[in-house]
């Protein structure tokens, strides 16, 4: 255990059975030097107030459960150290732009429903039998899409995106980045199939490139970059179809 420090956590509380408006509850705790915000929340739940509700599991930044607003910024709380905040008070709220089910638990149905619409699975040219072995793919070809395959669906990007905050019909950063992840995969031929959703009004063209999705991404996925790449590639497709209407696009 490291050095302990007095920390005040202001935590967003909302229980729909008893409240119509959220409140903030203050917990004063002795936090250890090596504690992340999630450790403090677990300490509160185990020792002070077992009614506080939040999601968490792997506590190593890969399951994507524990995204919350920490002092107004979307963060994975298992990777966010309390010692990095100069202020004695740390304010914890549910992720922005999502309906709140209870306390720090948000409703992410919207994302779960949007995800399949971008066909985030491999669409090969033709099905290859297993006995023909693997599709060959050089390390360079893997590198082309690898970054966009690192998304843990933590929803931080959605809560940083004002476009999504203003209009929740926007397909959004994580889902679109996954579309580009498959579009860039040398084994995939589903670009055309994904065009319908990706280039719809709610798709890439809704993005005005605020760029905050990339800034807050804890896994360095760069969804903003992915969306701009999608814009360029689908715009080129369209231009080619105008110039050479007879030639099929690949």
């Amino acid at each position: 255990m490291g050095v302990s420090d007095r920390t005040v956590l202001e935590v967003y509380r909302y229980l729909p059975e008893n409240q119509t408006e959220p409140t903030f509850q203050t917990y004063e705790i002795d936090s250890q030097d090596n504690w992340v915000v999630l450790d403090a929340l677990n300490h509160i739940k185990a020792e002070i107030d077992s009614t506080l509700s939040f999601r968490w599991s792997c506590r190593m930044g890969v399951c994507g459960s524990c995204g919350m607003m920490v002092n107004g910024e979307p963060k994975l709380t298992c990777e966010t150290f309390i010692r990095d905040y100069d202020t004695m008070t740390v304010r914890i709220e549910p992720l922005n732009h999502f309906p709140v089910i209870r306390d720090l638990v948000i409703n992410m149905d919207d994302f779960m429903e949007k995800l399949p619409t971008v066909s985030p699975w491999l669409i090969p040219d033709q099905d290859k039998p297993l006995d023909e072995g693997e599709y060959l793919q050089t390390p360079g070809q893997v590198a082309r899409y690898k970054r966009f395959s690192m998304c843990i669906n933590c929803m931080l990007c959605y809560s940083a995106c004002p476009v999504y905050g203003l209009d929740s019909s926007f397909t959004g950063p994580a889902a679109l980045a996954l579309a580009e992840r498959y579009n860039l995969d040398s084994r995939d031929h589903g670009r055309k199939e994904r065009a319908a959703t990706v280039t719809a009004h709610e798709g890439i063209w809704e993005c005005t490139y605020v760029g905050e999705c990339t800034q807050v991404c804890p896994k360095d996925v760069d969804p903003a970059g992915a969306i701009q790449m999608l814009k360029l590639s689908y715009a080129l497709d369209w231009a080619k179809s105008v110039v050479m209407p007879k030639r099929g696009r690949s």
Partner: protein
Amino acid sequence: MTRELTKPLPRNWWLKKAAYFRFMMRELTSVAVLAYTLLIVWTLGSAANSGGFSTLYAFLSTSLSVSLHVVILALALYHTGTWIALTPKVMVLWRDDERVDPDFIAGVTGISFLMITGATIWLVLM
């Protein structure tokens, strides 16, 4: 039954975070650049029609006009900067397994912009 809480974005959302504000400025500078372009086209057009370039020259040399142009130049440069910063996002280049450094791409774009601008100025001043 659960009643979920939704909090709509406040109208001044873009004042809440420096990054949002910079984004809004970027969008507004594009409006300014467009407005200025239209203004130029309109003044040149009307000056050409009426054959009165001398009035235009006189106006352009006033201190009001000069300060207006300084402001417009600043806005245009800010907007150009955002485009240069965006280039490596769209133009992802690869050298075998290694991604070409985005800063390098932005740098090349920036230098190209300066050279083209310089060449244009030189041509005009000639």
